[in-house]
């Protein structure tokens, strides 16, 4: 029997290498896929949550403008928005996009940089502003005849 024809002792080493390689591949594949899934889900859920929060804030702002729309009105209103979305802080900015009194509410998370826009129409002008997400305070300024939004 020549050395070349001698297969004894090789099956154990090969078996090791094969099972180690396949397990590593499998585990790596699963981790990569799981990580990707997590990433994708997080962006999607951040988008969904920002939209919900944006629509709630927009609705409350419109309600506040209806309530404050009179000569003698005074109004201070607290809007309870969640301080973090999927574990991230976020910014709310309000920009007028069309006169009169049509605004775009943009909510942006700081880390994942997901942005959601919500359009809203109010009965009164609202001062353009950017505030950190969380509890907001809406106040009517009778002198300026506009609503002001600030962090609470």
């Amino acid at each position: 029997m020549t050395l070349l024809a001698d297969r004894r002792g090789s099956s154990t080493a090969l078996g090791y290498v094969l099972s180690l390689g396949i397990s590593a591949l499998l585990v790596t594949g699963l981790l990569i896929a799981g990580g990707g899934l997590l990433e994708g889900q997080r962006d999607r859920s951040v988008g969904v949550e920002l939209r919900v929060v944006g629509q709630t804030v927009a609705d409350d702002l419109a309600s506040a403008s209806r309530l404050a729309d009179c000569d003698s009105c005074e109004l201070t209103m607290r809007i309870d928005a969640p301080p973090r979305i999927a574990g991230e802080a976020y910014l709310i900015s309000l920009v007028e996009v069309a006169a009169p009194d049509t605004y775009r509410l943009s909510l942006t998370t700081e880390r994942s940089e997901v942005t959601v826009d919500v359009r809203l129409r109010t009965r009164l002008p609202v001062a353009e502003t950017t505030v950190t997400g969380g509890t907001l305070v809406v106040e009517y300024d009778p002198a300026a005849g506009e609503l002001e939004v600030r962090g609470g």
Partner: protein
Amino acid sequence: MADVMGGARDRAQLLLIGALALAVVFLSLSLLLNSVIYTENLATRQTHAGVDKASDLRLVVADGLGDAVAHANRRSGLDFDDRRNVYRTVTDAWIRTLANYTATDGMAAGVSRAGVREGARIVDNDSTTGLVRGDGAGDWTVATDSSVRAFALEIDPASVDSGDDVRITFENGTATTVVIENTGSGPQVRASSSGAPACQLTDGYVDITAGRVDGEYCAALSEVAPTGTVDVRIRNGGQIRGTYSLVVDRPEAGLRSTVDVTNFPGQCTPPSPRTYADSDADDPYTTPAIYAATARLDIHTQDLDHQRTVRTAPGEAGGPVTEPTFMLYNVTQSGNDLTVDWNASDPNGDLAHVDVRIHYYSNGSVYASDLNAPVNDTRTFASVPSGTVYYVNATAVDAGSTRQVSEIRGTGACPP
């Protein structure tokens, strides 16, 4: 594995670490989905309940004040101070009840009265006569340059026959007319300027400012409900029998003499009989009334602080009145001296001045005047020439509008 990881007891560490990492991934995923579920749940909740409560409360307060005003105006024979006291008594009790009620709803609400505006109620309670003035004439002016609210008639439908139409006209530059007629198909109410179909009159109830006939919505009427200040005129009022009532935003002081000047241009003030009787002993008559009431509403909830003024004028078709008016207008004549006593007020507080003018009755030219006078003052025009008849007019001027009161006086030649 023993070779890779070293030691027989440390086998399968790669799998273990992999499994742990995957577990962390799935745990994060579940947390993420949980927060999405929470937010979706948030989305289904009612947004800002405080705003709804505040809006509801405003309507409740306007309603309650309106009822109090209607109650205070109801009886005849009271002067304005009496009516205001009734209004205060009624609202005192109601405000306390409202405060208790809102407290159980998680809201601290306060209502404080912020004044009432004096007007006059014009009433004809005699159902055996038509819509006629004091001397029985059916073509006449009910009110001049006035805001009108709660104008309701109760007509005997049997009296609406195929004779001349009864026309109630509101004029403010353009005229709109409510026509009560019978064209052969039964009594009906229509608006002359509206294309909307006429409304059949069965029970005889016509509420002009609410736009209702027999308690039901009438499109034709709702289009002609008087808004702003108007002259109210009636033509052929004697054709039907019925009663009516309306509230105008001018106090009796200036209203009665000014309406008399319009209705009886040939007679000195006061003519006999006057357009309106002094008391409910005769019809039609005027009585002091509350035209509108305002109150300050103060709402506090957990998330909301809100204050506003609530104004109510039940049955008013237009917006709030901004025109000035005379709370007092009195011309006293002593021989050839005419003393004019006036006091004007303005609901929106921008009253500038009062112009007093004495015109010749014959040609309308001005004999004497006191222009830019204070809003509350007295002025004597001494020794006006004898044997002449004069209009004594006063005009309250504010930033955007004017309102005039008028009397006719003569020195020796009255009626002219």
